């Protein structure tokens, strides 16, 4: 195995290379750290500094947009922005000079977080799975990607609150037969029955959604109906009787890999990054001697 190959397979080496590259990149983009330059008593406010400042204020990183924003500021607004920047710089420098960063746990956590980001970046950069790898990952986790079954139907509802002479269940049966005779279609359903508290039509809905609006008894009964161009039911819900025109049923299915390739890729990446992180942290900590002074 060549040195380069070995290097390529070693998370820690990866990380160090990526870290160095990143540092070089920052230096190139932002110039040297200004804190210690000049006499330390000069705050230079240039365009790149302002641009970076406003982007961090907004936590949105769109240089072109903010460049325009800065250009469109009135003289007063620009002065206000500069003042804000100067305040931040001055306070930051004073704090640094006083050594306030030393031993600050929040800063320690932030630095740790940055290291983790660097590790993750290193893992992400080298992530180039083959189609075969993705496909086998997909098949190994089919349960995660399987789409729930769905159903499409419209309904005619007889409200329990309204009492019919012949009994509500009988009335619903009669109405169902009448609608069959009249060949009442999907779009004509709203003309029959009472107003249901929720929707008229349910398009590609899962059992959970239906249960949430009709109750579980209805959802269970609906689950055994087959698609048909005839009215079925009545089915009892928490609210009354429903005649149902159920036109489509999509079984639980595994989506085409091609359709969710990106999702699979992201999931695999997440696993890879997590594993990579753990290995790299182990490698790093191994370089230290731990002197244990607690029980």
């Amino acid at each position, binding site marked *: 195995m060549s040195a380069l190959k070995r290097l390529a397979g070693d998370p820690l080496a990866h990380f160090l290379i990526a870290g160095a590259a990143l540092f070089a990149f920052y230096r190139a983009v932002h110039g040297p750290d200004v804190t210690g330059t000049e006499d330390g008593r000069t705050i230079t406010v240039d365009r790149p500094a302002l641009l970076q400042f406003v982007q961090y204020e907004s*936590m949105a990183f769109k240089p072109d947009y903010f460049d325009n924003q800065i250009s469109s500021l009135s003289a007063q607004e620009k002065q206000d922005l500069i003042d804000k920047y100067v305040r931040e710089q001055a306070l930051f420098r004073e704090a640094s000079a006083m050594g306030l960063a030393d031993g600050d746990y929040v800063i320690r956590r932030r630095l740790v977080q940055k290291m983790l980001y660097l590790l993750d970046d290193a893992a992400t950069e080298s992530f180039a799975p083959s189609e075969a790898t993705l496909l086998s990952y997909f098949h190994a986790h089919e349960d995660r990607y399987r789409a729930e079954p769905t159903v499409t139907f419209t309904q005619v509802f007889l409200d329990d609150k309204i009492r019919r002479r012949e009994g509500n269940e009988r009335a619903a049966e009669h109405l*169902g037969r009448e609608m069959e005779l009249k060949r009442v279609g999907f779009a004509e359903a709203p003309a029959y029955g009472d107003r249901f508290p929720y929707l008229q039509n349910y398009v590609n809905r899962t059992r959970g959604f239906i249960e949430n609006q009709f109750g579980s008894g209805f959802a269970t009964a609906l689950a055994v109906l087959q698609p048909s161009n005839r009215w079925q039911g009545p089915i009892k819900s928490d609210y009354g009787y429903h005649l149902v025109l159920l036109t489509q049923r999509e079984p639980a299915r595994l989506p085409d890999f091609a359709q969710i390739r990106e999702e699979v890729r992201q999931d695999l990446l997440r696993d890879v990054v997590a594993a990579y992180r753990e290995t790299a942290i182990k490698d790093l900590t191994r370089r230290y001697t731990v002197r244990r002074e607690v029980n």
Partner: protein
Amino acid sequence: MQHLSRKATGTRGHAALWLTLSAVLGGVSSPVEAQETHLYWGDLHLHSNYSIDAYATGNVGVTPDMAYRFARGIPIANPNLGIKAQMRRPLDFLAVTDHAEMLGLEILLNNKDPRLLSTPWGQKMLALRQDPKSGGVMRAQGGKRDPQWHEMVDQAFSPVIRQATWESEIEAAEKNYVPGTFTTLIGWEWTAMPDGGKNLHRCVLSDADGAAARQFAPYSNYESIRPEDLWSFLEQTKKRTGVDFLAIPHNSNLSGGLMFDMVDSDGHPLSAQYARTRVQWEPLVEVTQTKGTSEVRPELAPSDEFAEFEIRRKLLAGAPTPPSEADYVRSALLRGLVFQNRIGVNPYELGLIGGTDSHTGLSSVQESNFMGKLAVDELLRERQHPTSPTVFPAWEMSASGRTAVWATENTRKGIFAALKRRETYATTGTRITLRVFGGYAFQPRDAAKKDIEAIGYRNGVPMGGELTEAPKDKSPTLLIVAAKDPLSGNLDRIQVIKGWVDANGNPQQHIYDVAWSGDRRPGADGKVPAVGNTVDVKTAQYTNSIGAIQLSTVWRDPDFKRAQPAFYYVRVLEIPTPRHTLYDAVALGIDVSETHEPATIQERAYSSPIWYTPAKP
């Protein structure tokens, strides 16, 4: 399954039998008429002095109970101004949605509550508020990274204290619930702000009565700032207590690209599971309120000449925010269709509502008598020259908005069901009456009929519903009727906003002018010219000499493609009327340009969409 088998062997095709059945059934098969829906007006987003930021901005005295009483039309003594306040047009329903975080702590301090004052942090808060320049108790909130934060929450926001202040909210809601006349919904605001101030807030509403609401406490951003965790809480609480919930996002316009994102909180592409969970808990979105409109930003819809309307281009803390499709409702609805194509579920199937988010305890939306977002804004001189710097200058705020629901009854049950089925619309404060039905059988003459409601329900689905199974050679058709608010401007026009996914899978939008006042003719671009403007900027008066009192139409989608999923929502515009800034300018004797805000406004209503989903071939 007895019924089903009987059905399968059922009789078919006999005219005599059909007649007999019709006679027996009597009213049963006749069109839906018995149960009308009624229009109810409300506010689902209002803060009392129990919200820590409301208290810090001057609302020390309007309690949840006073907020409900004011909305009911009962006079209250405005503690801030020392005058009587009474609502000219009371509301039909209200949810006081105070921030869950530090809920009611200032009030406990006022009451010298021993549960709070017996803790070191309780004492510390007492000291903080005795120094008014310190920024008050809110300053104790700090951040989760602050090591003292956990100590603060453990002591000053312990379960006992949370339950105590929650109880006050419940009591106020219970006391003011008058079934049939005034509905109170028990809820709160979950105040998630990732990235140091991107707005992911949700108002959480329940269908609970007092007894049920005592079985839980408001979920706060102390528990989590991830919406997924909020939904899990709602799921578990529903299982445990039987209480149903809705979480309603607001100010997506200030979310910095997060509210309607393409990825979840961990940065992973939205899965079907995520979409199903989201759509279960979040069937609605607040599209307009004091901090601006979230319908659309002009940069995202260059051909929409009415898009530059109460737009806020700053995040909560005042930093500028670039236009993002993840921040606005129209682009979210489009994204929803794209997701539906891709993963089979639409995560952004959103009905529309409006709220004030007022922190004064007074739900105020009238331009001519706007009381502001914050209690400090109630004073005219504060609007002109704020004594302390503010991120929400009074004149930048919108006097908005209202939620309209079509419900069978004004009760918790009736209002909650209407919200859940999205039979709702939003307005910017005006009370435009708006009916929208979608179907395939509406005829042009239906628009002139007196019983449009009956025709609508008989032949279609109301706003918030969905269509599929388009009959052969038929296109979705909307039956729309709008009537002006008797106390506001006439109507300029009705527009249908259609969004769809084209054959290449790309989202598209188009705005159709479908009804308008006067004899204006659409230009070559299909757009109806502007209605005109009667506002006198010297006196802040206008006349209803232009515009229409009522507009109705039956509109058939001229560009319908059976295989392409689509949504349709309706926007109704009023003629220009004075914005609150003009009333203030006239009162102060200054030129309105000094407010840096427009003199006039075209108030509007936005309906919940009706969706069309193609049937599988």
